Each structure stands twice: as structure tokens, then as C-alpha cells.
């Protein structure tokens, strides 16, 4: 999911959102949740997938911003994501290996991003890959 258009590309992934918006930075689209805002998408899981690596794309300008990742509407899965650039200026990636129980025997996975008291980090890409290196 790399096209944040508030239109067919996002609604094709069943976008749900509250207090979030889309815009561009360096010609690349992003979605960001305002304070107490959220947005989510549904992704299909191909058959026979044993492992998924979630790769999120951020920009170094958002260093220190935080958001919560919630999977399949289950608060027990909540994981705080802090934007921690490993480059000085530009886009970079955070990888997370999703636990098998979240994907095994499932057709879909829902990823929700929630902001806290502050605006979350701008999300420029959500990659779901089956192998490492991606």
C-alpha cells in the first residue's frame, strides 16, 4: 500500500479512518493520523503464507513521532512504533515480523495505526512481504 489517495487505491483496501488525512511530501503520498486519530486497511494473505514481514516506510523528518499498530482489532496486539531514522535525510524503513498466529489460516489481516496525544508519523508505505531479504 503505497498510494494514499483518499480514493480508489485506499478504499480498495477498505480504508477506515478518523482524524487522519493524506498529502504529499517530496512527491510521495502519505497518510497521517492527527492526535487521537486512526486509520486502517485490510490486506489479503496469500494461501500458504507462513511468515509476513511488515515493512513501514517513514521519513526522517518525523523522527521521534509515535503511533500504535493494532492487528485485527485486537488491543492485545498493540505495539508502539517510534519513528527512529537510521539515515540523516530521506525515506527509510522499519521491519516487523508478524507472529504466525496472526496470519495462519487467515485470508485477511487488518492493520490499524492509532495516534496518541500527538500526531503520528507520516506513513508513506505499507509493505507485506513473504521473504527476507524482502
Amino acid at each position: 500500500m503505497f498510494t494514499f489517495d483518499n480514493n480508489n487505491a485506499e478504499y480498495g483496501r477498505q480504508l477506515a479512518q478518523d482524524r487522519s488525512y493524506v498529502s504529499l511530501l517530496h512527491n510521495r503520498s502519505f497518510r497521517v493520523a492527527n492526535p487521537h486519530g486512526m486509520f486502517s486497511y485490510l490486506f489479503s494473505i496469500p494461501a500458504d503464507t507462513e511468515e509476513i514481514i511488515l515493512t513501514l516506510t517513514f521519513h526522517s523528518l518525523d523522527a521521534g513521532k509515535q503511533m500504535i499498530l493494532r492487528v485485527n482489532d485486537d488491543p492485545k496486539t498493540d505495539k508502539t512504533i517510534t519513528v527512529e531514522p537510521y539515515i540523516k535525510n530521506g525515506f527509510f524503513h522499519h521491519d516487523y515480523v508478524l507472529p504466525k498466529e496472526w496470519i495462519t489460516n487467515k485470508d485477511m489481516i487488518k492493520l490499524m495505526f492509532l495516534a496518541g496525544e500527538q500526531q503520528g508519523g507520516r506513513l508513506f508505505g505499507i509493505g507485506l512481504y513473504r521473504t527476507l531479504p524482502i
Partner: protein
Amino acid sequence: MNYLLKLEPERFLHEMYKVAGLEPPTEEGYQGWERSDRVNFRGHFFGHYISALAQAVDVVSDCETQRMLMDKLHIAIEGIAAAQTNYAIKHPEHCGYVSAFREVALDEVEGRDVSVDQKENVLVPWYCLHKIFAGLIDTHEAVNDRDPVLSSVALDAASATNCLASGFPVLKKTLFSHLTMKCMTSGMASISQSNRLTLPTHQKVSPK
């Protein structure tokens, strides 16, 4: 590799979005053969670029570079799919069409009368379209293992060309001959036999 990373798929998508009735993601597209204001090859370079990204992903060993390439590949393929979807919504009788130039350029090749003010100044429109679809098929084949969802989006976008193929004899001779050859290794043959070559699932989204 640096050249591939320097180019922006969003700028390649500029003309394609305009044709599809979407707001372009950038203020301007690329010039040179991708330009729209003079004689051009719009879409041709973009197609080669997609193929190059797909092939580079497979050979690069550095993880970060691979991620950046995949980001760009996602943007390109998802952008094409978004343009194709919107075009299908606006022109359901021509669903499947996705290009950086209007269909009138193909009419001209087919010998239909096109007024001077409607001409797109595309030198070889089928050739340009072929490059886009070759890029989609290359992506489908290159990323199927690591990213089957993106691979599927690319294949669906390429497959949707069947929707408009019947009206264009030239298309059958050029574009589909390429696709048919690729079918042997990509699984397109089984898909075409199952009549899946209609509006792809990702195009069934209602416009907002």
C-alpha cells in the same frame, strides 16, 4: 541502480492520471519522450523503468536498496492500477484501458478520422502501451515469491487489457502475442482459460 532510485514513478504517472481523470500526484511529469506538448512516446520510458525496477529487485543484495526499489515498484504498479480503475469507472465500455495518452491515439492507428486538435502526437502508441504491459508482466514474474499481492495486482492490470482488445485488431497482433508468450511461464494461460480476463477484482471498488 542510483539512476533507478533517482527517478520518481509519481512523475511518470502524471499523464496517466490525467487521462484517467485523476488529479496527478505531481505538478508536472517528465519531459523528453514522456512529454505531452510535442511529439512523444508517452509511457514508453515508464514501461522500461518498471521492467528495470522489477529486474533490479531480483539482483540487488543490499536490503535497504531492495526496499527502496520495492517502494518505487509499488508506487508505479498501484498508480497504474488506480488509473485503470478510475478509467473503467468513467468509461465502463473501455474498461482495462490504462495509458499516458488518450484512446484517440489508437483510433488514429486504426485508420479512424481524428481531428487535428484531438491528436495526441504519440508516434507509436501500441509500442508505448506494450512497454507498460511488459513492465506489468515483468513485475508479476519478478516479485511473485516475495510479494504475491503486488504480483497479483500487476497481473490483473495486464489481464484487463482483454476488455478492450476486441475492438483493436492491431492489439491482438502485438500486445497479446507478447502476453501469450509470457503466459507459458507466468500462468496467464490458465487464467485466460478460466475467463478471468475481465474487470479485475481491484477495479470493483466504488468511487468515493
